[in-house]
Every structure is written in structure tokens, then in C-alpha cells.
């Protein structure tokens, strides 16, 4: 199921957010003497992003990790529905190289651990099977964090997948639909000249 379909099903009722852009423009049709502002749609609301930084096995593992760390609830979309893995593929591609290396090595480790334990890739195992592999996430918090690279990766992924989910168009649309405060709106400073 495409993410946009999931979003529409979660929203349940038609709303302004779910209407096509041209419908919005029709309702707010300006008088002939006014200069119209053209309604546009965000690329990620209308098209699927390309995955470029991870190979197929790594990306499948990241998507599965998102499903386990930030699952959908009855009320809100999870990392998969929010396209968190797809967004992180982009973000890590424009991040300092060591961050991408951390992720690639961590995702490879997830797959090798899953193969070693269950003879399957990480994307195919259950959450219960994944729990021992994700044991570093049960370690108590410390300011400097773990020194172990795999544990570092898991903590980074937990934080990034959660943030990418709650900051997504899909999550915020549902939260707004359900009348939740929150989120997602801020005072933005444009480039100042």
C-alpha cells in the first residue's frame, strides 16, 4: 500500500488536506483585479522519493527497524507509513560521511545478526526475534552514549526514525485531524537581506 493511500485511510474523512490542489484553488478563486497566489503541492505529497544511499538489503533493514522502533498505532501512523526510512535515505546522503557509514555498518550488522540467528534477513524476522539483536537499546541512558559502534547506530536510528515520523506530513495531518495540539508548526525565519 502506498503511503498516500495509508494516509487517506488514517484520515478517514475527507478534509481540506486530502483534497487535490486544484480544488483548493477553485474555492479561493480571486477577483479578476487581484494577483493570485498559485496553490502548489509538496513533492513528497504527490510523488515517491527515490532511494539512493542504501542497497536493497540495507534499506529493507532500515524500513523494518522503523516498523519495530516506531510502529503505527490505532491513532497515528508509524515510521513505515510516514516514509521515515525513505526520508533518512535522503538526509544521510547529504550528511557528513561518517554518519552514513555508521548507518550502513549498523544495517549490515542487523542483517548479519539476523542471518546468524534465524537464517533470514532482518526485514523478515519478527519484532520478538529482533529484540535480542536490539539489546543495546535496553541499556540505561548516559550523556556520552555508548562507545560501541553498533549501539551508537541503534540509538541514532531510534532518535532519527522517531523524529522523521512525528515531523512527517502523514503524522501531523492525522494528529491535526484528531484535534491534538501540536506540533509541527513553528515560526520560520526567511533568509534576511
Amino acid at each position, binding site marked *: 500500500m502506498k503511503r498516500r493511500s495509508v494516509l487517506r485511510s488514517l484520515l478517514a474523512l475527507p478534509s481540506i488536506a486530502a483534497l487535490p490542489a486544484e480544488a483548493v484553488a477553485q474555492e479561493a478563486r480571486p477577483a479578476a483585479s487581484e494577483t493570485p497566489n498559485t496553490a502548489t503541492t509538496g513533492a513528497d505529497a504527490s510523488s515517491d522519493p527515490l532511494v539512493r544511499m542504501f542497497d536493497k538489503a540495507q534499506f529493507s533493514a532500515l524500513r523494518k527497524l522503523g516498523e519495530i522502533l516506531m510502529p503505527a*498505532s490505532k491513532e497515528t501512523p508509524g515510521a513505515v507509513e510516514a516514509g521515515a526510512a525513505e526520508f533518512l535515505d535522503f*538526509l544521510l546522503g547529504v550528511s557528513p560521511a561518517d554518519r552514513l557509514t555508521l548507518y550502513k555498518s549498523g544495517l549490515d550488522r542487523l542483517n548479519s545478526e539476523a542471518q546468524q540467528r534465524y537464517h533470514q534477513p532482518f526485514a523478515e524476522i519478527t519484532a520478538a526475534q529482533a529484540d535480542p539483536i536490539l539489546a543495546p*537499546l535496553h541499556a540505561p541512558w548516559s550523556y556520552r552514549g555508548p562507545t560501541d559502534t553498533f549501539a551508537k547506530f541503534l540509538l541514532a536510528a531510534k532518535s*532519527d526514525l522517531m*523524529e522523521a515520523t512525528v515531523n512527517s506530513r502523514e503524522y501531523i495531518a492525522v494528529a491535526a485531524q484528531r484535534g491534538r495540539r501540536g506540533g*509541527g*508548526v513553528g*515560526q520560520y*525565519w526567511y533568509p*534576511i537581506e
Partner: protein
Amino acid sequence: MPDHDILIIGSGASGGMTARELTKRGIKCLMLDAGPAVDFERDRGTKKVFELPYKGFGRPGRFPHVTQANEFNANVWADEKKNPYTYDPSSPYYWVRVRLVGGKTLVWGRASWRLSDFEFKGKDHDGFGDNWPISYRDLAPYYDRAEPLLRVSGRKEGFRQIPDGIFLEDNSTDSESIQRFLAAAKAKNVPTTKPRRATGSLASSVNLLLPDALATGNLEIVSNAVVREITTDKNTGLANGAHFIDRVSKREFHAKARVVAVGASALESSRLLLNSGIANSSGVLGHYVFDQFYVKNVVTAIVPEARGGQPRRGLMGGGGYIPRFRNLDTKEKNFIRGYAYDFGSGGSPSAQYFPLYGEALQKELAATAGTQFSMTTMGEVLPRYENHVSIDKNVKDEWGIPALHIQHKYTDNEFNMAKDSMNTAEELCHAAGFEVLAKHWEMVPPGESIHELGSCRMGDNKKTSVLNQYNQTHDIKNLFVVDGSAFVTGGSQNPTLTISALAIRASEYMAEQMRKGDI
């Protein structure tokens, strides 16, 4: 071009205050600021986080040293690539700058505490370092003038270490969780008070200081003026203006004036003086850099009664301040001077503190929503000669001006203080009946508190200081440095109020010297 009486470099707290004080006395001022002026209607708007290109993460690598930057406010902070600086990789320094008219007063935290003689006469108290050339009594009348301008709210307490001022009285009631914490602190003889903060929807030089100065007709402000060098008369040695470069076109100009007042912010002002090759007969220009160390969220706790997702009305919310309480009448074994805390009730603990994931984490986050009590330490950093700035001739900014090299390390005195602050915070939270979720004593890197001070300190001795007690350089009588670089010590109090009071005092002196024809 007309000559001006005074050239003011910088438009933040010190530059703005200097302009306000001088223009009302009929003195013609020209102000140069390196950045553009904000048009609040045009330059700000609301956006949804998912509309931002990086969905709230910010462009990776854009601000390696500005932890305060996020994708919403990124355009406020000075571009680190256009405005580079260097440091020894083993001692990172986070230099946080704003290059806009109004400077950092556009974004400051507004905390407004007076220094006391525990700072002005610190050497007399514990033997370390140097005293200021002024005492609290000298500056008190100027604090009295600065606080109403900044509309500071607070509560009078009679504490020696943070003298009372002219406040908008804060009579707000405390939430139950705050009341419990205050009682626990009182039982341990730890003082507490309400925050003292500048109020209003905006509390900046651009709305509180510059409009009054402009209204006199005696102030001209040139934005986008990146000052390269202060110029001096070859015959007299006196300052006679400054060379500056238009930020956008890079065209060069020279502004003339009878007196020059530099308020470009600590470190930036010293960079300008060092690049100009002036005011350094003492050899201490650039030295004695310090700030205040921060241990952010030294303790994060949960108010147990608030668990469940919807804390009852009146239980949570609000906050306060614990002023320095160490080394006032007693003496600690492991450190001199002291630290303060900000504390606050409300908000939700971050997911990072819970060793959980998935549904279990979501349940715990829901259960602890709105339950947080947290404390942050602000500690005094000892001014040391070896902590200094110098010019790095190998690195230049976008306008070809040599960059600053910053050398600043914390020492055992700060580390020991930070540890003590963690233990004390934990003790107080336990005594209040809170569950301590996380604790640490890791200080943020030097500079990150945005309270950089010193590097152009004042003093009575021309051989060990750059400025006299009126912020006037010992070497050039018509050159003043009116910002935080003049500080000799900083205590644990946020410095903007003291910077403002010192700027008023210096301006009054400048005006009198000009009237007498001495400068």
C-alpha cells in the same frame, strides 16, 4: 561626507544602549552593523515542519557549532562558512554569533541578574585573579536605569549575591511541584527566587533602545557594514573612524568620527582591535577570555503524581532560579566561586532517557507526558591569561578580514563545580519527592552558553588591562570598548544586564569628556 561625533560599531545591547544614551544628549552618532535589519513582517512567518526541506532536522553540517540553530531559525545565526574562526581541535570552542541589526538581543534568553561584590571584588574574597576597578556601588545606579528600560520582572529577596533591583514585581503563584521543590531547597538552606527576566513580546535593542535613539534625529544606522579596521590619525594617534566593507557589494568605505565606541560583542571587538593593531601596549588584549559553563539538564526528574498522561491542574508548571550559594560564607574544598541553577516544571521527558522502544516506549512517553522537572547549571569560569584569542592570518572571512583563533579550556575548578552541582541537584530533587530519571555533569563546550566575556578587560593598571573603569582604552583616549569584552570576572549571572549598565555608565562618561573637550 559629514563627520559624526561618535562612531558606534555594533547595534546589540551595548551598541544600542550607547546610542540611546548619547543621542538623547544631542550627540550625533553613526552606527555600523555587519548585518541587515530585520523586517519582522517580511522575514518571519509560520510554517509546518514537514514543509521544510529537511523536515526539522536542518541542513546537515550547516551549523557545526551552533546547537541553538534549528531549521526554523537557521537564517538568524551567522553563517559559519562566511564567518570562519579556528581553534585547536583538542579544545573546541563554539562561537555563536548573530549578524543582524540588534545582534544577539534578537534571540537572548532575557535573564537579567545583577553582579555583586562577590564578582566585582572577587580577589578580595578568595584571592584569585583580579578585582574589577569598580565596585557594586559604582554600578548600582546604572543597573537602576537599565532594568526599567529592559522591563525586568522579578522578586526582591535581599540576597547579597544577586542584589535587588527595579523590577516589575513578579507575584505569580507557584505550582504544587515548584512549591515542593522550594520547600526542599529551603530545608537545605539553598536560596531560591523567581526568574528575573526582560519582558514583552520582543525585548531587543531594536524595539527598546534604537527607536528612542532614532527619534532624536541624532542617529544614523548603516546596516551591512562589515568593519575591517579602526583607523587612527598618524599625527595624534587618536582614533578617527573605521574602514568598512558593504556586506553585499563588497564596496569599501571609510566613516569618520571624533570618538569610536566598539560594541561588536566580546571576541569580535577584540578581533577588530587586534586586526587594527591598536590598544595593546599591555599585551593583554585578547587574553582572559571566559564565559559561564553550562550543564544542561544536569538532572531530569519526573514528578510522580503527574504520571498518567494528564497532570491535574495546578500540579505542574513554572520555574525559578537558585543563585550562587557556595563559597559565600563557607569555603569548599575542591573549588572556588560558585554556580547557579535554572529549574522548571512541565514538559515531557525526551525518549532518549527511556531504555525502551516500540509500543513500550510509546506507552511510557504517554504516561510521562507533562511530568518533567529539570535543572540546568550555570557556573563561573575563572578568567585565565592562557585562555585567549589571537588573529589567524591563514584564515579570512568572506570579506577578506583575518579570522580569530580561540584558545579556551575549562579546568579542574569548573569540573569540580559541575560535579558538585549534579550531586546537589539530585539531592534536592530527591528531597522534593521527585524521581530522578537522568543526571550528568558534562559541560557544554566553551562558548556554547553564548556568554563569552573578557579579552579586553578593564583595570586600573595599564600594564595588565586594556580599558579603564569607564571602558576607555588606556592607549587611545577617544576609543572605547563598551561590550562584554570589558568584564574582569563574570560570576554565574547572565551578563546582558551588566553589559547594559556598563554601557550607560561609559556613555555618560564619554558625553562628559566630550563636553569638557577632553576627547
